[in-house]
C-alpha cells in the first residue's frame, strides 16, 4: 500500500477517467471494470477488500459514488483517493456542467429517446455483472446466497431502508460468514 509510483497513479487516474464517461447507468455499473483492473490486472487489492469497500460505502451516508474513494484509499491512501475521485468525477462533471449551461432541453427528441431506450438493456447487464462480481468472496456460502436473494426480494417488494438490510447482513455475517 501507498507504494504506487507516479506512473501507476497516472494510470489509475486515466483508467477512472475513461470509466467516468462509460458510467451511463451510474457509477456502480462500472464496478466490474474497476474490479477487473484493480484486482485482476494490477493485483492492488483482493476480491474481499473490493466487495468490503462497496459495502462500507453503502453503509455510510452520502452518494454511493464514494465507494470509489474507498478503492483509492485501499490502493494508495490520500493520493489514491485523489486519483480515483478526480478520474471518476472529472469528465462526467465537465460534461454535466457544459450540458446544463449550453444544452437545449429536448427530452422528447428521437435522439434522446433512442439513447435512453437503447442503453437500458446494457445497464441491466452491467448491474447484473456488478452484483455477480461483488459476490466473488462469498460464492458457495449458503448464508450469503440467502442474504443476496432476501435482499433482492425485500427491496423489490417493500420500501424498507437499505440501512436495515445492511445491518441484518452485518449481524448474519459476523455469526455465520467468518472466513475459514
Amino acid at each position: 500500500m501507498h507504494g504506487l509510483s507516479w506512473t501507476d497513479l497516472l494510470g489509475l487516474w486515466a483508467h477512472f477517467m475513461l470509466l467516468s464517461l462509460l458510467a451511463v447507468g451510474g457509477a456502480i455499473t462500472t464496478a466490474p471494470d474497476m474490479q477487473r483492473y484493480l484486482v485482476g490486472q494490477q493485483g492492488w487489492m483482493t476480491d474481499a477488500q473490493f466487495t468490503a469497500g462497496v459495502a462500507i460505502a453503502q453503509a455510510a451516508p452520502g452518494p454511493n459514488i464514494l465507494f470509489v474513494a474507498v478503492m483509492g484509499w485501499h490502493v494508495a491512501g490520500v493520493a489514491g483517493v485523489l486519483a480515483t475521485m478526480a478520474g471518476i468525477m472529472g469528465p462526467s462533471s465537465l460534461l454535466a456542467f457544459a450540458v446544463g449551461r449550453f444544452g437545449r432541453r429536448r427530452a422528447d427528441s428521437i435522439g434522446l429517446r433512442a439513447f435512453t431506450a437503447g442503453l437500458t438493456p446494457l445497464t441491466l447487464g452491467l448491474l447484473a455483472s456488478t452484483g455477480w462480481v461483488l459476490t466473488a468472496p462469498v460464492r458457495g456460502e449458503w448464508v450469503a446466497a440467502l442474504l443476496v436473494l432476501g435482499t433482492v426480494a425485500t427491496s423489490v417488494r417493500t420500501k424498507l431502508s437499505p440501512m436495515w438490510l445492511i445491518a441484518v447482513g452485518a449481524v448474519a455475517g459476523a455469526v455465520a460468514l467468518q472466513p475459514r
Partner: protein
Amino acid sequence: MASDAELRRPANCGELFRAFNRLALQGFGGVLPVAHRTLVEQERWLSAPQFVELLTLGQVLPGPNIINMAIIIGDRFFGWRGALAAVAGLLLVPMVIVLALAVAYQQQAAHPAVAGALRGMGAVAAGLILATGVKLARTVRGNPMGLPACAAIGVATFALVGGLRWPMVWVVLGLGGLGMALAWRRIRQAEAAR
C-alpha cells in the same frame, strides 16, 4: 406543491453547501429521495417538474445522477462557484466518514467477526444492486426495441463483462451503440407508421 412564483433562491454558496451537505448526510443507500424532499419541499429552490427535468438530464449524462444534478443546480444559481459548492457539500463530509470507516475496517479486518460482518454486508450490497436491476427490468416492457432484442443485449453484456471479463469500454461502445441504433430505427418506424 409550490408554483414557480413561490420558489426561493439560496442566499449564497454557503447555503448551497449546507443544504447539499445536509441531504447527503441523511441519504443512506441513495440520496435522491432525500434530495427531492430537501430541494423541492423544504428549500423550495426547484419546482417538482423542474426536479424531474433535472433528474432526467442527470440520468442521460454519464456519472452519478445526484452529482450531475448538483452541478447543474449550483451553476444555475451561482455559476461555477455554485457548482463547486454544491458538489463539495455532497461529498466532503460523507467522504471523511466513509474513509474513517474504511480505516477502521483495515485495522480490524483480521478479527474473524469483523471480516464475517463485512462479508455479510457485501452480500447485501450485491443484493441491493441486483434489486436496482430488477426494478429497471420492469421498464423493458415499454422499450421500443422489443423484449427479445433487449434480452439478447442484456444477456450478452452480462456474459462479456461479468463472465468473460472483457474491458468495459468495448462492450459499452459495441452493444450500447448497437442498442441505440436499433432503438433509433424502431422509434423512426413507429413514428412513420402513425
